């Protein structure tokens, strides 16, 4: 009898112990840059599973979100949930995230060529996305333009003035695309490609969503965007299509627990939920359309759903060097702004003349014309610094936060002025050369 009682007592203790471990706090607050379309299905599913916990969503742009978490250290929100990996890096470096080891059996350790979770365990990839090309079918038909398939297609003269992108300094995912092209094609060739594509830009937007917005409305026909922008717009009924080029990069969208979070257990449960079978299934919702990080979840996906774990083209071609990328992160952003974003007018004028000269020289077949044209192309696709200089701490350091342990580099403004002058001069000269080439007989 006594034995029985002690067993039942032990059982009781075990049960209550489990119950105590399971009892989550009654709420959890999440700062996110995702729209309601994305957050609501997850929140509903989570609250159904844990009825005692209310999820409070605070929508903020990524910048505002990072600033908010930094300024509210004494009583922070519990989690940060966003796409941009760079935002999480900034939070991690500022000691604003806390470590956690999520229950993630069945989650692939790598997606594309990058690890799914932060190797140090500060933030966790819950969905994958790849960069590609989105286009408005009505627009292309009306302007008689073929649908693009590869990055190189966007260099063609027929796309002049029809392409848009968001600035890499404004969008962590665009930055990764730029970096992927630089690593895939090499520094000089990569920049040459981007400047030639840049010659066809209608605009460089200051926010990621500006690009799908413009393609959806038909302001321009072709946008370089992350997949879910294209796929979800299509699912919402817009006349748009999305394709992955052969060279693309697959990156995880992330969630992290903020250091000093009040509702730790609920926050951890939310991470685990996102990575669980139920959570991953939500990603297939037509308004969300992101790629699950559990390979098994693709079984329920509709036919034709992109799958980075079976499609050899998706994000495996390029081996991404994270250290290389990190060392020149700010510099690449600033350089891109200097020679593309802020000098777009000059750049597009130069390439317009080059395209015209191309056609004229093909007709005239003038040797002088060919020589001038080659020179013009060279100028319009040149980059002001070498790959080695870009990773030199004395230069790259000028673009990073001043810290006592770093040597004081020259000032950012000095480099920027030099690059700006370089770009203006080159583009103006390229235009003159190309115009002369067109006239050469």
């Amino acid at each position, binding site marked *: 009898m006594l034995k029985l009682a002690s067993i039942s007592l032990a059982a009781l203790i075990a049960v209550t112990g489990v119950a105590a471990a399971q009892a989550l706090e009654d709420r959890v607050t999440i700062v996110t840059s995702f729209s309601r379309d994305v957050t609501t299905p997850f929140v509903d599913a989570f609250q159904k599973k844990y009825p005692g916990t209310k999820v409070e969503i*605070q929508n903020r742009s990524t*910048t505002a979100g990072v600033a908010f978490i930094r*300024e509210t250290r004494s009583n922070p929100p519990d989690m940060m949930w966003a796409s941009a990996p760079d935002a999480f*890096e900034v939070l991690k470096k500022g000691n604003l995230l806390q470590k956690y080891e999520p229950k993630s059996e069945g989650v692939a350790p790598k997606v594309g060529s990058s690890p799914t979770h932060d190797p140090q365990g500060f933030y966790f990839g819950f969905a994958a996305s790849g960069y590609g090309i989105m286009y408005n079918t009505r627009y292309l038909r009306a302007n008689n333009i073929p649908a693009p398939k590869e990055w190189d297609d966007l260099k063609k003269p027929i796309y002049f003035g029809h392409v848009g992108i968001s600035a890499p300094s404004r969008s962590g995912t665009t930055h990764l695309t730029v970096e992927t092209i630089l690593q895939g094609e090499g520094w000089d060739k990569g920049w040459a490609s981007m400047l030639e594509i840049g010659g066809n830009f209608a605009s460089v937007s*200051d926010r990621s969503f500006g690009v799908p917005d413009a393609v959806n409305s038909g302001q321009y026909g072709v946008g370089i965007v992350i997949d879910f922008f294209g796929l979800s717009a299509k699912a919402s009924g817009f006349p748009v299509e999305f394709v992955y080029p052969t060279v693309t990069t697959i990156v995880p969208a992330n969630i992290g627990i903020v250091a000093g979070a009040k509702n730790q257990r609920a926050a951890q449960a939310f991470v685990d939920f996102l990575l669980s079978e139920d959570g991953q299934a939500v990603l297939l919702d037509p308004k969300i359309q992101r790629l699950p990080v559990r390979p098994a979840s693709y079984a329920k996906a509709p036919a034709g759903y992109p799958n980075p774990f079976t499609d050899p083209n998706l994000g495996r071609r390029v081996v991404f060097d994270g250290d290389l990328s990190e060392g020149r992160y700010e510099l690449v*952003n600033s350089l891109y702004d200097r020679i593309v974003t802020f000098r777009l007018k000059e750049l597009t004028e130069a390439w317009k003349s080059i395209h015209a000269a191309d056609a004229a020289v093909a007709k005239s077949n003038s040797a002088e014309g060919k020589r001038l044209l080659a020179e013009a192309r060279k100028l319009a696709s040149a980059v002001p610094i070498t790959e080695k200089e870009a990773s030199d701490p004395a230069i790259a350091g000028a673009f990073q936060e001043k810290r006592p342990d770093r040597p004081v580099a020259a000032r950012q403004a000095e480099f920027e002025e030099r690059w*700006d002058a370089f770009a203006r001069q080159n583009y103006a000269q390229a235009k003159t050369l190309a115009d002369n080439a067109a006239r050469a007989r």
Partner: protein
Amino acid sequence: MTLPAPRRVGLLARWETTPFHLICAGTVAAFLVAFLIVPVATVVFVAFWDGQSLTLVHFADFFRTSLMIEATWNSIYVALMAVIVATIIAVPLAYFTVRFRFKGAALIQTLGVIPLVMPPFVGAVAMQLVYGRNGSVNLLLMDWFGFRLPFMEGLNGVIFVQGLHYFPFILLNLSASLANIDSAMEESAQNLGASGWTLFSKIVFPLAMPGYIAGAALVFAKVFDDLATPLLLNVNNMLAPQAYLRITSVGLADPMGYVISTILVVLSVVAVWLSLLSLKNRDFATTQRGGGGLSKRELRTWEKFGAYAFIAVALILALSPHFGILMLSLATVWSFSVIPDAFTFAHYITVFRDAGGMMANTVLYCGVAALIDVVLGTMIAYLVLRTKLPFRQLIDQIAMAAVAVPGLVLGIGILRVYFDVKLPFSGESLATFWVMLAIAYAVRRLPYALRSCTAALQQLHRSLEEAAECLGGDKSVVMRKIVVPLMAGGILAGFVTSFATAAVELASTLLLVTRDASAPLSYGIYVYMQSAAGRGPGAALGVIAVVVVAIATWAAYRVAENDRARRAREGVAA
């Protein structure tokens, strides 16, 4: 004539100041220090910091950077041209509504405010869908005539959009000023043989100058500091977008963004100061107030036709983005076509659940903000124009500087200073308490109310107050019974502009809102406009925001109108 002033002592007498004035000055100064200077300084000091010590090297860099020099000139050029465009639209509208007996003058005044209410993102999409490269207008032009007009390209595009967007600043302030002119002035001029254009250009317009200058200065400062329009048009080589792009890049500690902000503040203040200089040493004040402004007359048939045609063209141009928002809110899909594919009410049903609370929050926050603004604006105007208090100009300039402070900077500053201050009882942080959001709006919109109040007081003759003091009223009574009622038109114009523009403020909202339940409409619009599927619901909320502001404006006019009628009746009775 100078009246025997009540006996005062020492400094107070020299400053022509009473204790009441000192209390006003103290209140204003405390507000500005607590909610503008300190929060902004904690953020902007980076511009003066090289890692170890104070420095001006970043400012030297600014002037060495050709992109910045180019951006400065572009900003000045665009702001001046936008003032001209806004003047061309606003001056005739103001004159028609005040000068002639006109059906629907109140309607014009109300519709004239709507352009200020450009909901974030929705407004941008709608502008592009109407005037953009492949917007409705250009698609029609392409179909019919085979060419496009570059409404939204480059600096001229910015001027076009800004002129349409901000002309209400001139319309509202000029109308208030025109309504304040004593009809005796006009009658004297007519007796001396002036009429038509001579009467307008020599008498009426010069007397309304304080209102016009207030409006024009606001248009200049606002366009100079505005970043929404250049960003919408992807014009980067202007100062405000340059500052914004640098400040809001994730993780970048680039001092140049704050250098640009500081320079924006300085140049805006200089511009307003120059505009006030043009009014100096001239007297715009008139004493008789019973008559109720200019005499109104009927229009001849052909004049009526011309006036209506002008009003129609101006309002169609200015309100077409709002018509675009309305269509967007009712559209299923609208892409590369003149009008949407089909119409639906589904988006309104989607937002129905959230909209009520957000509407109430918007009215509450913006109402409180606008109220703070007109109270502070009246106090500052009074201190500047009626006392010789030291530093009174400085207060005016600091308040004005708020026009150029980016919302994000103010938001971060407020979080930094007030987040750890806890409210009694609830324990909630002061920074995320809703009143703080209203205060942030008030700080950002104070310049609008301030300019309107200053213009109104400039037209008010001092002798009226002196007479009241002679009859025994002390300063606070005179303020309450004489000054404020006589400034009512200008105060109302200030209230309306502050309210309308606060209703669509986004940057500081995004930092300070922490719960859906306390979110205003602008937050809701932002949340929806982040996805393709949210475009319709976002537009529906945008329409609701516009309607809320329109109703509030109309109600404000009704209140003012009733008040004026009541006073006129009392005047007759007395």
